[in-house]
């Protein structure tokens, strides 16, 4: 006699697949980005880099500027629309003196970057120019804006992809900075 139950296997497989795919759909609806690439740089040292300053603005940015205190590095560009959306939050953080904010002007034209900063405000302490993405690639950047939190030992402790929302700041990044300060 041929047993009946093996005919249920495809049905079982179907149910499992539907469950897996629907979980993914729900996750995406719940704000998980399907193109998210987990960062392999977490809890590792900041890559070696030394970038030129914005002409006429002063302070450049290099690896050694990131030791001796917790700091925030923001990869940004005057061409980047999402960076503009994030900008008011960075301005507010700079106004409250929350954390030193450094910028990496990624693939940007120095004049355009300066014009953008004078128009929208300049929250950055140091800015390094990365015209050919070499430092962005060293940081594993895939798009702008991206934000890294570096601790006082120069280790990368957090990476945020995309504009920082008020929610992400107050629920994730700020508590993390508080815990690093202790």
């Amino acid at each position, binding site marked *: 006699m*041929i047993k009946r139950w*093996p005919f249920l296997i495809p049905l079982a497989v179907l149910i499992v697949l539907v469950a897996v795919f629907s979980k993914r759909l729900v996750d995406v609806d719940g704000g998980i980005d399907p*193109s998210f*690439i*987990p*960062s*392999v*740089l977490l809890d590792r040292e900041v*890559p070696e880099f030394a970038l030129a300053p914005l002409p006429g603005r002063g302070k450049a940015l290099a690896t050694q500027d990131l030791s001796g205190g917790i700091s925030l590095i923001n990869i940004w560009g005057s061409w980047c629309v999402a960076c503009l959306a994030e900008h008011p939050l960075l301005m507010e953080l700079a106004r409250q003196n929350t954390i030193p904010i450094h910028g990496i002007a990624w*693939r940007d034209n120095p004049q355009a970057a300066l014009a953008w900063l004078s128009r929208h405000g300049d929250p950055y302490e140091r800015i390094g120019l990365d015209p*050919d*993405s*070499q430092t*962005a*690639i*060293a*940081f*594993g950047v*895939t*798009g702008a804006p991206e934000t890294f939190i570096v601790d006082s030992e120069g280790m990368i402790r957090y990476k945020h992809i995309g504009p920082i929302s008020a929610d992400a700041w107050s629920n994730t990044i700020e508590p993390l900075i508080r815990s690093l300060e202790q």
Partner: protein
Amino acid sequence: MTQIATILLVVWSFVIPCFAVEPDEILRDPNLEARAREIGKALRCVVCQNETIDESDAELARDMRRLVRRQIIDGHSDQKIIDYMVDRYGDFVLLKPPFKPSTWVLWFGPFAVFCLGTLVIIRKIRNISHIQMKPLSAEEQDKLAEAENNGTTKL
């Protein structure tokens, strides 16, 4: 026929050399450039997700190609350059997934499914050949004879 073949050949010749590598990026030394192409073929453009950095027109892909070439000129080995990218972007940057415990399902999965299917089919075939045909009962034989006499297939 020859016309179709010609069209196919022409279309095909447009399809194969699909590179975004721009003339100013190409290294003078053809051997080094060949190495750069090999490495470029193994690396995924991280903003397009399904192209190699050699195929992609994305600016980040172009800068990754430049970085690969810069490191070749600096004397880094192919493996070291690929490791540099994996170090920053993870296994995701490799178009061919590496062979390690977390990817075993990926590598063995299709073969496992194939073997399982073969097993199921073999068992089915065996079962069929083992089924003993019960001889028709007297009543069934009568019915069959009657049906054949009437020239109908309906029992």
